[in-house]
């Protein structure tokens, strides 16, 4: 199982210097892992936000900064149970990206499924590559 080695990348990382402003909520913040793909029409971003439901996530695009934030509450309520062994921490997510491509803001789509956020950012018409026809004289 050579691909298992990939799992190393899945280790949760604390959101570090990218958090420019202080938050009002206390607790840990993690930086979600993302995949970003591009084709001629869209930029598509996938972010792993385990523990966050669709109502917990906020996506904003302000100027050219795309921000992803998610609030996560612990899956097991403390009471009869004690955390006896831990390999991951539970906390909120925060990450922002600078989008250099002009985006059609009205058509941005975001949805959550099984802890994965998928954002489709459609490019503006003028940003799309255009084939220029060469005319013979």
């Amino acid at each position, binding site marked *: *199982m050579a*691909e*298992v080695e*990939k*799992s*190393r*990348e*899945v*280790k*949760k990382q604390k959101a570090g210097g990218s958090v420019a402003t202080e938050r009002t909520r206390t607790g*840990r913040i993690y930086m979600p*892992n*993302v*995949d*970003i*793909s*591009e*084709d*001629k029409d869209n*930029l*598509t971003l*996938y972010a*792993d*936000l*385990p*523990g*966050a*439901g669709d109502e917990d996530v906020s996506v904003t695009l302000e100027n050219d900064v795309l921000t992803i934030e998610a609030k996560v509450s612990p*899956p*097991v309520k403390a009471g*009869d*149970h*004690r*955390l*006896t*062994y*831990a*390999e*991951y*921490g*539970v906390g909120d997510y925060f990450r922002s990206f600078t989008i250099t491509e002009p985006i059609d803001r009205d058509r941005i789509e975001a949805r959550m*499924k*099984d*802890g*994965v956020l998928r954002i489709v950012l459609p490019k503006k018409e003028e940003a799309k590559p255009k084939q220029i026809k060469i005319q013979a004289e």
Partner: protein
Amino acid sequence: MARIGRISWSWDPIQEMERLERDWSDFFSGFGRQSAVKYPPVNIFTGEDNVIITSEIPGVDPEDVDLTVTGDVLTLKGTRRRQELGEGQSWHRRERGYGDFYRTIQLPYNVESSKVEASYSKGILKITLPRAEADKARKISVKTA
């Protein structure tokens, strides 16, 4: 990363473990050792009557996850499928891992395997494993002779 006189008002076990893990991997990094992180990561919550295991596996089809329990060992097996590229797409970033995973987890006690329950929601797998009846602590009354 030396810490001198670290004052903490509330003890946070996860924070503590992360700190230890980080310190150890810092310590070893000079020897070219990479800190091994198991996938999927699990947290174990222990109660009187059952154990709850949670695991972060976002974007996995529950059909692709296979759980088995034998005595006090839980086996967690599955696949996280690769995000395929569509026609004319190319990657800018690829940070999310994928592939097959296989883990065995030693439980703190024997489990009633027929009563194990598992659910998957928001990318978190939650397994509730009731303690075996025969394994529960019993109060023994002392008889007078």
